[in-house]
């Protein structure tokens, strides 16, 4: 959950460079708990992806490089890279065979998230917005 919130938020901030956006705005748009979201935004700020804005309204502003920041960079702030299989000791042949298949999936997942930048995502969001897809409508809400 924290990871999805982080991804939605990063995209919201990156789509509004320069404009401070508040946690309340994002919480209302995605229908999520403000308390939970505030923690996620504090983590993103600690990682240097957001700057907090003082004064009336407050909020945060995007501080990352949208051309180089990937979805994987954001995900890894909230999730450990999972090692498949039995972590302790030797693996038997069943565990080894299953781990091989699971690592195939992990590799594809990593290559996908690691090559999609925030800027590439914003272009994709725009494409869905222009196509008026249900996904885009949800993102716009």
């Amino acid at each position: 959950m924290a990871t999805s919130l982080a991804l939605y938020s990063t995209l919201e901030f990156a789509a509004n460079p320069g404009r401070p956006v508040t946690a309340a705005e994002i919480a209302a748009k995605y229908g999520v708990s403000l308390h939970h979201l505030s923690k996620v935004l504090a983590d993103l700020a600690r990682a240097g992806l957001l700057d907090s804005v003082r004064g009336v309204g407050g909020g945060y502003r995007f501080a990352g490089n949208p051309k180089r920041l990937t979805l994987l960079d954001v995900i890894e702030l909230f999730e450990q890279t999972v090692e498949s299989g039995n972590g302790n000791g030797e693996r038997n042949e069943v565990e080894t065979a299953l781990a091989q298949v699971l690592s195939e999936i992990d590799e594809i997942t990593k290559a996908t998230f690691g090559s999609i930048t925030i800027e590439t995502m914003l272009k994709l969001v725009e494409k869905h917005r222009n196509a008026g897809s249900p996904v885009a409508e949800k993102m716009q809400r």
Partner: protein
Amino acid sequence: MTSADLKDTTAIVIRPVEAADLGQVIAIDAESTGIQKTDYWYELFHRFGTGHSRQRLFLVAESEGTIQGFIIGEVRDWEFGSPSCGWVFAIDVRPGARLAGLGTKLFDSICAGFRHAGVDTVRTQVSRDNNLMLSFVRSQGMMAAPVITLEMSLD
């Protein structure tokens, strides 16, 4: 010439490769891959570079007489039952000329060539640990194709 000088991509011409460009194309590839494959490039030139077929495209990016990059692709019909689509199987931009939009210009040009040849989909295959190429093709809007490439060792 640096990539800063190339930022004005209007000074870049994208055109079909000519025999006289091959020396520079081979050098760009050798710089990227560390292997000089002269015979391979001459063969590719004969198959793709003659400009006689709409189905096969070998384009170069030239600025002031220097070849800065190239792209090669072809239309493949009914490969594994898939409707015709354009395939990009090589692209390379001189290391000193990268990040100035040349890769994008080459890619846009080959896509225009594929459209002209009557196809509406373009595909490529990238090693999953080649983050540079993956980031580039993703930035062009490419998404995973509904196919999975599989292999096995024949030992």
